[in-house]
């Protein structure tokens, strides 16, 4: 059986199916191969960037050190939920007949705690997500591909918002499962918890979108990591203090509306409105602003911030 004539290295690759290996000898062309397979264009590119960025936000694929902060914060968000559920479950069994004791952790009261963790998460990870490509001029490798500048900004924004949603909703899911299973009558508990799940999702999205937008807008404009993180933390911490001071001192409407300046307070107000209960934070309580106003302010602010991010990436020199 004659050996299949090997294609010389420099010309076209051997396209005929390779002969069975057995008795023959063949040399295959290791030269540069053309690619005439499928090209999936922009939508696939955006999805690939979104997934890569989401993994990058949690330090996956970036070496050990990059995972500490994101997973650390996620753990801090989840552990109390698990502990509370465990405590709740023990209490339930040894507790008084039948009546379910007021759970120490409930969906709406868990938010203020998670919200601070999310703020730290955004302050640490938003610069990771955006600053890196600017500082090392990697943008020119992205923009010279089948991708519009706005696609890049959208994919990165979606990645951060999704990451925050994870940090917010994973603990809530644990509480949901825990409360449902801990209760004596599973079906009844499930029904009750399901009724409040839309509120959970709405509140989670609001937190993710508003805090994410603030983090993105700042990170997009400050390539240096340290300055970006410091500024984001400042943007979350300083306004509430100013709002509190002015709230006490000034009389009249100024005191009430100054609360709109602080993202944390707006979210607290929305949280109370969505879960139909009184806000725990007394500045917000005293301001007593109607839910729809808070929602409108949140949406407008998010739109403006995302707009600023898009504009930045439209004009940045790659």
């Amino acid at each position, binding site marked *: 059986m004659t050996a299949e004539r090997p294609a010389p290295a420099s010309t076209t690759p051997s396209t005929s199916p390779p002969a069975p290996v057995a008795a023959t000898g063949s040399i295959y062309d290791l030269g540069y191969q053309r690619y005439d397979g499928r090209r999936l264009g922009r939508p696939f590119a955006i999805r690939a960037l979104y997934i890569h960025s989401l993994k990058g936000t949690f330090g996956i694929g970036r070496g050990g050190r990059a995972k500490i902060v994101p997973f650390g914060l996620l753990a801090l968000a989840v552990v109390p939920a698990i502990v509370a559920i465990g405590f709740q479950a023990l209490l339930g069994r040894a507790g008084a007949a039948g009546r379910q004791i007021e759970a120490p952790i409930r969906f709406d009261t868990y938010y203020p705690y998670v919200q601070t963790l999310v703020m730290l998460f955004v302050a640490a990870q938003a610069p990771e997500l955006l600053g890196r490509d600017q500082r090392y001029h990697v943008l020119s490798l992205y923009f010279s591909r089948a991708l519009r500048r706005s696609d890049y900004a959208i994919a990165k924004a979606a990645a951060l918002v999704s990451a925050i949603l994870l940090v917010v909703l994973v603990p809530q899911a644990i509480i949901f499962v825990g409360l449902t299973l801990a209760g004596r009558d599973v079906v009844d508990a499930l029904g009750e918890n399901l009724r409040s799940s839309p509120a959970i999702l709405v509140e989670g999205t609001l937190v993710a979108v508003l805090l994410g937008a603030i983090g993105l807008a700042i990170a997009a404009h400050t390539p240096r990591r340290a300055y970006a993180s410091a500024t984001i933390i400042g943007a979350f911490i300083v306004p509430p203090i100013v709002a509190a*001071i*002015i709230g*006490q*001192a*000034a009389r009249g409407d100024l005191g009430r509306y100054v609360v709109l300046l602080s993202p944390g307070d707006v979210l607290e107000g929305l949280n109370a409105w969505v879960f139909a209960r009184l806000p725990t934070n007394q500045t917000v309580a005293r301001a007593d602003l109607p839910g729809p106003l808070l929602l409108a302010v949140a949406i407008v602010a998010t739109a403006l911030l995302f707009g600023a991010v898009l504009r930045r990436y439209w004009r940045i020199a790659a």
Partner: protein
Amino acid sequence: MIWTIARAAERGLLGRRRTILMVAVAAIPVLIAAIVRASAETSDAVPLTAGLLDGLVVRTVLPLVALVLGTAVLGSDLEDGTAVYVLVKPIERWRIVVATYLVAALPTAGLMGLVTLAAGLVVGGGRGAEGVAVAFAAGVAVGSLVYVAVFLALSVVTGRALIVGLGYVLLWEGLLGGLLEGTAVLSIRQYVLAIAKALAGRDGDAITVTFTFGGAVAIALSALLLVGAMALGTRRLARFEVRGD
């Protein structure tokens, strides 16, 4: 010659966003003084003014502004190689240190002095606390001159001047200053307070100072520290090495 170096360094230091940031930070005490004035109707303005100026300016804004400007004027240029074009000139190193010092120290002293006076008058003006405001302004001005000198020298000695400077302010002057009286001897904050107390005359007892040697000694020590910092800066600049192959 010093004027030539100063003019070049000045455009480098104060040209950028850093100036706006510094002015904004310096304006915060005046803002808060206005708010306090609007809401508090206390009778005795002197302790209120003294407390506010001490807490808001001497302990926080003054060292911060001095730290940023002091370490940036020469330190950051040494770090990114911009300073090389001045170093490779036949100029004595002390002239470079003095020129860059003046560029950072004078604006800091001016800005902080004004801000202290303004905040003091806003809170204590018309209520008999004008004297305290003036005394604090003078103290803060002297403090600025010393802080900038120390931080500048620090920025020549180490690349991490910002962090080391922050450590000095928070730990030595802040934490230890509260616990161990002895640290006052080497605490610029105490010098400022001592000078203010001496100048405030009758109202001086509203100012709490752990530095027990009085205003004159504080000024003397300030001068000593300033000159020492200049000398250290010069010596280290003369031995500055550019790294890297």
